[in-house]
């Protein structure tokens, strides 16, 4: 096992969806998709964003794109036009997620 940042094994893009954010995560290989679909649970996302996301996390799977898509309810300080927080559109939630550390089998990192 090697402890790496998620960004080493995945890409991400995020934006707003109502008063929540949408984070797309793309595994860097089909093998890593299998690994991430087992490891990157809604509980992991909720724990990482516990200070940002005040609602539930929902996960969708897109095996055809080696991708997972997450919806983080109530995570934008009230929503697009009303919020005063810097990142009222969740633009940095994807890059933020790529900071979390994961234990990854070394043969998947080749």
């Amino acid at each position, binding site marked *: 096992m090697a402890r790496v940042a998620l960004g080493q094994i995945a890409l*991400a893009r995020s934006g707003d969806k109502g008063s929540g954010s949408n984070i797309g995560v793309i595994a860097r290989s089909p093998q890593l998709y299998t690994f991430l679909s087992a490891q990157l649970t809604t509980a992991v996302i909720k724990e990482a964003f516990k200070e940002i996301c005040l609602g539930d996390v929902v996960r969708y799977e897109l095996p055809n794109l080696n991708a997972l898509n997450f919806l983080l309810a109530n995570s934008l300080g009230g929503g697009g*036009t009303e919020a005063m927080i*810097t990142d009222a559109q969740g633009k940095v939630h994807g890059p933020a997620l790529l900071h979390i550390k994961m234990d990854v089998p070394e043969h998947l990192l080749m």
Partner: protein
Amino acid sequence: MQAQQNKKVLIANAQGFWGDSLLGSLRLVEEGPVDYLTFDYLAEITMSIMQKQKMRDANSGYATDFVQLIGRIIKICKQKKIKIIANAGGVNLRACLKAIKKTIVETGVTGIHVGIVEGDDIMDRLAELRVSGETFANMETGEAIEPIVDRITSANVYIGAAGIVEALRQGADIVVTGRASDPSLVLAPLIYEFGWPLDDYDKMAAGTIMGHVIECGSQCTGGNFTDWQTVPDMARIGFPVVEANADGSFVVTKHDNTGGLVSVETVTSQLLYELGDPKSYLSPDCIADFTSIQISQDGENRVRISGIRGREATSSFKVSMSYSNGYKVLCTLCISGPDTVEKAQRLADMVFARVQMHGFDIAEDDRFLELFGNNLLYRGIVPRLEHPHEVLLRLGAKSNNPKALQVLAAEIAPLITSGPPGITGFAGGRARPTEIVGYWPTLIDKSRINTQILVEEV
């Protein structure tokens, strides 16, 4: 028939939002082949801003920079037979049409047909529609509309591709809509060019996903991309062009000799952008299934997509309403260390105490304080710094009384001489309260909406 099967239609996105770089369209018409330019202008807040402009001036309320762009590109568009589709009409399509015609006349170009698609603006019909049974409950929260109904400032239906198709059939070279949904701007010319039936939902979904990929402009050609260091020449990033085939498959690409990167990764990143449930991507034209997408690299800066499946759309249109919801003000100051965090808290306490001394009360819940520079954006994910040497104080409040917020803003600069040391960066001047535009997403039965087409020649 053979010709139809081999036919390719090239559709580009030239502006991904109101305020996007003007270079997109100016370069797209020069740098390579394209059949249609599409322009996406209308975010939720945009309609409300345009509504306010229209209330001040009956001839405004649309995307004026689009009209200016037409003046700069119409000559070459006519030469190259490039058609233009834009949801630039805002809340005043007739004024937009008039301005476009005037601009074209000034260029001396003739024989241009300009079409508008009306019927998305239901602001004047709200009372009648509510009486006839539309509840307009908030589709996200389920809340009833009554508490905000007197404060609504705009109400627009996300219409689909059909009206645009009709305008193209009537010979329009330029089609302008109000709040047409973004992907419909791309789907419509494909329906027109390939003769796709509106109930061929796989094709509707294919065109919708094409629109989704390119609707944010350069975000699918290397912009906002995780591996940004691998993206060449970002200053000259190419805007996206899709090469669409009659069977619904397509290639996402960009013009030769432009910057940026079109790879499976850059396109997939955009496919996931603000996606929601991938099996049920709702548009006015269909429900698209993103889990059916097959994607592969098809040469340098070319990504091929096929296999898309779709289903019949729901019986409702989405409606975007905006309403006035009080005021807010946001002020900034730079705080140097040591003790930045303690200084920031002291400054905030001073400001709110002084607002109270002026005789205004701002409730605890309406006060806002944020320290930028202390791992704020990644809070909970990256640890906060124990002693940040500098932070940006972002301090503000909400209120129904703009005077209270003016007083707050006026008490920011005095902090520099009456508070802790090392406070600077008040270069931007005194902040001004702005109206908060509330957003109210809701639904309306499709049978209530009829679009009308008007095509005029210049």
